[in-house]
């Protein structure tokens, strides 16, 4: 079990399964897209998607190739701490829904940047949109790497060829599909992914001697004693509470700023439906996430007790390798189709977000007289270009595909989430605060990441810095502080009053919370803002203190 080139020995079988899956997606996309005539249809599917379909689509958009391939790779590398890091990612949609999703849905926003434009003006929204494009591309990059790896294993072709072939097919599908196709497809993909992950996992578990194979997500405790014997450190926390705390600003708050996720809340037919979708999302995602932890556990178990040897370079292929070793080829072909589905749905969410950001939030903002037809064409062009850029970036991939994705979470948490959260809940927040927060916070986050200046990092622990955990613990609170303090000061500077739009901001906030009148006591708490600044300051100082990794 020392596969040098892990691949299907019968690529025709794999191709047939993947081809059939794609055909299904194209047909659903085509049928749905015939109805997609306007810009609104393209991005939010007309705003009339049912709760179950939407919940499934939310889970599918979120459950990317990172879930299918990336998590198991990092469980192999980091063991239990990575599972503990991943668990809270389920909070994304519930928190988006309760903190600002329903408000933005009430406003009729296309995207978070649409809200930022109405709330903070054109300049701030363009800054936010530029950062969001970077977030979406980094997120899409992880998917592209996964797609290339999947095609590499499927066809036995080199990584680069897999990247170009797989990448172009998928970008083509998304450009044709739009969000209406994407929402229906994403729901189908979620069902396919869940089945193609959990059923083969049951067979693998049975093969390695697990007796709880009939419900793999939770019933693998009988394998724990053998695991503890051969790898006593598997369940160790390894890192300090500071590391675990840093997950909150980096990933929990980070997910609140992800444009493609928030857009799913706006596809709901009404607020009640959006809240029901959140319940479905939590149930389904919990099931699939728990199954991935089990898959990671089984992978480590197989390497520790069964003599399976997975090289560091092949870590991202662990899920596929386990299937190649323990399951018949046709099962592996189904798993590969499931992995491609996972990449497809997330990538379509990313690319549609890039399309919306570029055509709606930047071009249409700068040139408001552009025709709707031209705007729609521009959206399609942006979707395709975004895909091409992520293919080009994936030519020289980072060590783990999930690292770039998690780094993108942190950047969204720094540049977007504070603007939306504070913007929805505090009338005093203004454009000067927003621009200061996004630009300074964003730059700090990028500077302390290992990607630009490898010597300027906070911990020196490669994965912690690369995933943006350390950077976000510093930059997210700095962003909140700047937004609140700069807004508070500039609101009191008489020379700037003519440049601020206090009255329309107040009206907007009251309206998106559902009020028909305006009351000065609502959403105006100076004490709440002060508490946020104090807590953020303490956290930012803590981030600068030694991490002792």
């Amino acid at each position: 079990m020392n596969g040098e080139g892990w691949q299907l020995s019968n690529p025709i079988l794999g191709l047939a399964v993947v081809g059939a899956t794609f055909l299904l997606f194209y047909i659903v996309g085509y049928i749905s897209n015939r109805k997609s005539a306007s810009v609104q249809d393209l991005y939010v599917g007309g705003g009339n998607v049912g709760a179950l379909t939407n919940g499934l689509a939310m889970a599918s958009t979120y459950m990317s190739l990172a879930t299918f391939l990336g998590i198991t790779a990092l469980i192999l590398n980091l063991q239990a701490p990575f599972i503990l890091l991943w668990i809270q990612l389920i909070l994304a949609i519930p928190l988006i829904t309760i903190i600002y999703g329903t408000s933005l849905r009430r406003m009729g926003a296309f995207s978070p940047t649409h809200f930022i434009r109405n709330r903070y003006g054109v300049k701030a929204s363009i800054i936010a949109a530029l950062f969001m494009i970077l977030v979406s591309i980094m997120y899409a990059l992880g998917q592209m790497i996964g797609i290339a790896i999947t095609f590499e294993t499927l066809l036995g072709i080199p990584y680069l060829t897999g990247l170009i072939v797989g990448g172009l097919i998928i970008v083509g599908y998304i450009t044709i599909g739009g969000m209406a196709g994407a929402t229906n497809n994403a729901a189908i993909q979620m069902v396919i992914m869940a089945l193609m992950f959990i059923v083969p996992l049951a067979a693998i578990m049975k093969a390695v001697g697990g007796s709880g194979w009939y419900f793999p997500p939770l019933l693998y405790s009988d394998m724990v004693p053998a695991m503890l014997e051969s790898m006593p450190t598997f369940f160790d926390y390894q890192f300090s509470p500071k590391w675990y705390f840093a997950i909150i600003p980096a990933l929990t708050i980070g997910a609140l700023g992800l444009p493609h996720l928030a857009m799913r809340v706006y596809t709901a037919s009404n607020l009640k439906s959006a809240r029901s979708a959140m319940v479905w999302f939590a149930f389904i995602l919990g099931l699939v996430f728990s199954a991935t932890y089990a898959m990671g556990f089984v992978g480590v178990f197989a390497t520790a007790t069964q003599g399976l040897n997975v090289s560091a370079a092949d870590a991202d292929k662990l899920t596929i390798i386990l299937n190649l070793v323990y399951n018949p080829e046709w099962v592996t072909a189904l798993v590969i189709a499931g992995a491609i589905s996972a990449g497809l749905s997330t990538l379509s969410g990313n690319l549609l977000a890039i399309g919306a950001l570029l055509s709606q939030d930047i071009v249409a903002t700068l040139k408001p007289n552009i025709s709707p037809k031209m705007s729609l064409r521009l959206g399609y062009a942006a979707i395709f270009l975004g895909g091409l850029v992520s293919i080009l970036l994936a030519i020289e991939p980072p060590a783990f595909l999930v690292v770039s994705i998690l780094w993108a979470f942190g950047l969204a948490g720094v540049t977007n989430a504070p603007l939306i959260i504070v913007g929805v809940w505090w009338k005093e927040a203004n454009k000067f605060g927003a621009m200061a927060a996004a630009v300074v916070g964003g730059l700090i986050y990028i500077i302390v990441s290992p990607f630009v200046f490898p010597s300027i990092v906070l911990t020196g622990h490669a994965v912690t810095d690369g995933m943006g955990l350390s950077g976000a613990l510093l930059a997210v609170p700095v962003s909140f502080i700047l937004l609140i303090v700069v807004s508070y000061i500039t609101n009191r500077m008489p020379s700037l009053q003519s440049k601020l739009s206090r009255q329309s901001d107040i009206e907007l906030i009251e309206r998106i919370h559902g009020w028909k009148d305006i009351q000065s006591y609502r959403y105006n708490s100076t004490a709440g803002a002060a508490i946020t600044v104090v807590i953020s300051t303490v956290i930012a100082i803590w981030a600068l203190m030694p991490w002792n990794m």
Partner: protein
Amino acid sequence: MRAYKKEVQFTIWMTLAFVLVGNAGLFFAMFPTDAMMFGFPVKYIVPILLGWFGVFFLTIVAGKIGNHIDDEIDRENESLGHSDEIKGA
């Protein structure tokens, strides 16, 4: 004032509840334990179970309360409309 206060308090407490339930690993990082539960170490299985069923339960609660607060806001809006009409008459 009532529905507004409820809305703000609901959002703060619900957010805290979600963050705590989803980040149970932080609790066990601060208070380590070697206890076992259902055949797994507690510090492993409890965060997983809370991250699934705990979050699922909270989404049901959040959905119900969120809908209820929306209705209250609508009612307050309606009563406002009535008082305006009375004033107008």
